[in-house]
């Protein structure tokens, strides 16, 4: 399927005892997981030194499938757990896997402060526009008018543009990709993993079972083909003057800066004070 990956076998990176996985048929999360593992493989990151921290929800469950040091934490808090872990163990490579509800609703405060702080972490947010694990309730990224189990008359709340939010909060690296472009996803995640600060990567995933079906969005392949044109983060987009609005959701690297990395800055300040 991916001929440009002759030396990468995803099975080498998965915990076989955890198979079969619990993702629904058509779910995009498996593709995002594949892209992450492929990126880790190409960067030759030592899995003994890799820590994957996840929250609660469908995305949160992915950490258990990865053959590394994995931590399935509490709802919305993986970035806060990862902050403690990365500061205590700067020798580890810390990756956070989270979902749109985990990261932007219950964990929203932790996200903006992680962006502001710029501690070296790679945060992979899988956005399927829905609370899938609990049966399909509206999330902060559910597009307006969509039907969910808690918006039976259509969603009336504007939704977040997570990348615009992360950029505004100062994240060192911000990018977005869709699950149908696995090699591009892999390249974006590689760039994020190598960024010497906080990297926020949003992957537009699809939930066919409890979101697509309820909104007559067709099969998984039909859903992913329309992602860029149909996902419409209104809260940010509608705040931009109409002539400047883009038609499709932008993907790729959306922001990158070289602000000081928090952990290094903290250690340098302590060393400077000790030298006095």
């Amino acid at each position: 399927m991916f001929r440009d990956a002759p030396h990468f076998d995803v099975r080498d990176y998965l915990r076989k005892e955890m198979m079969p996985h619990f993702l629904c048929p058509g779910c995009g999360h498996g593709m995002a997981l594949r892209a992450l593992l492929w990126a880790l493989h190409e960067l030759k990151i030592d899995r003994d030194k890799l820590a994957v921290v996840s929250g609660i929800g469908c995305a949160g469950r992915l950490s258990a499938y990865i053959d590394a040091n994995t931590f399935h934490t509490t709802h919305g808090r993986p970035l806060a757990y990862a902050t403690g872990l990365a500061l205590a163990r700067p020798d580890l490579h810390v990756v956070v896997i989270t979902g749109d509800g985990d990261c932007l609703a219950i964990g929203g405060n932790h996200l903006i402060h992680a962006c502001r702080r710029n501690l070296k972490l790679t945060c992979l947010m899988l956005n399927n526009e829905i609370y899938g694990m609990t049966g399909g309730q509206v999330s902060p990224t559910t597009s307006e008018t969509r039907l969910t189990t808690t918006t039976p008359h259509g969603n009336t709340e504007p939704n977040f543009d997570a990348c615009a939010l992360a950029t505004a909060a100062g994240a060192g690296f911000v990018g977005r990709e869709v699950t149908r472009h696995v090699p591009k996803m892999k390249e974006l995640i590689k760039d994020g993993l190598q960024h010497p600060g906080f990297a926020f990567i949003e992957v537009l995933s699809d939930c066919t079972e409890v979101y697509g079906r309820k909104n007559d969005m067709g099969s998984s392949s039909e859903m992913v083909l329309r992602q860029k044109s149909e996902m419409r983060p209104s809260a940010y987009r509608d705040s931009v003057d109409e002539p400047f609005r883009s038609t499709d959701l932008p993907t790729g690297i959306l922001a990158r800066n070289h602000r000081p990395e928090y952990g290094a800055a903290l250690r340098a300040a302590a060393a400077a004070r000790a030298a006095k």
Partner: protein
Amino acid sequence: MNAIDRSHHKPAAKLLSGNAACAQGAIDAGCTFFAGYPITPSSEIAERLSSLLPKAGGVFIQMEDEIAAMAAVVGASMGGVKALTATSGPGFSLKQENIGYAAGAEIPCVIVNVMRGGPSTGMPTRPSQADIFQTRYGSHGDYPIIVLVPASAREIYDETLRAFDLAEICRTPVILLYDQVIAQSSETVALGGRPPAHATRKWASGPRESYKPYAAGDDLVPAMPRPGDGYRTHTTGLTHSESGFPSQDPETVTRNLGRLYAKLEKHRDLIDSYEAVRCEDAELVIVAIGISARAARRAVDACRAEGHKVGLFRPITLWPFPEIALREATKSAKTILVPELNIGQLRLEIERLLRDRRVEGLHLISGEPITPAQIAAAATKLATEV
């Protein structure tokens, strides 16, 4: 400019507040990570450690909220370091979620709760002892926990050392619980009498293939995998099997939760701590903690001077409650008096443990500490009724 050279003079005693003694205790216990959030009356611990920890090669971070501070502490401990957070009632409420995680996933850590008046924002600068049950039952579900209740700045120092020891030995969160008066009063503290604690974590060793992160030996405390050592395990707040992976198998779930309780019971000789004063012949025993116990100590002497046979039982470990010691100390007592700064919490536990005795409370919820005179008056009244 000081004309007298005092550099050779190393005083044995320091004037320290309870919170300062806690910060010093954390450093001496080998704590290298603190995450917190500003809250009265515990902020001095964070302020001190923001200066002391970087000097000791550790990390201090002020997080975006109380929840994040607790999460960062658990995260740091999962990375292998001794970690601390400190808060007061409103913040302690917010920390419960991740305290439960630490209890369930067996992650050592220490949490200080400096009690102030409640409920809600309550009285930030006034003392209270109303978090007795929240420390025990604050997070959802069944889980055991260790709670220590020091009553002076010196004892806060000692119990901070012990809290880190117990957290590591038993692989559990440990809560240090004291009130605003002890936290913010400065007292003479003689340090150096006790060597710093050196309980170290039991790390996983041996073959990686057959390693099970939650398989415990005789002490019922599983060796912990250190990230980087090659064990590549999974840690979760879901109920899990010995492999660490999620499990809802009834027998597995029952056995693992049972072990959490049994492991603390197995270490009761290390955990239990109390002080019994003049209890041998006491007909009335006062049971109190923290600042109320210090007032009670003076009330005991006052009552004895009047000829009343009064003693004091002071738990230093609150949970699990040192019930064997309580029964021993109250053998000759017909009446128990429980003075406390709440509407009746410790009294409930004493009533539960001593059902055949008359248990009376002296409850003050005004935001003021109880005075020795108030306790002596209540004790004298009960003693003369007997």
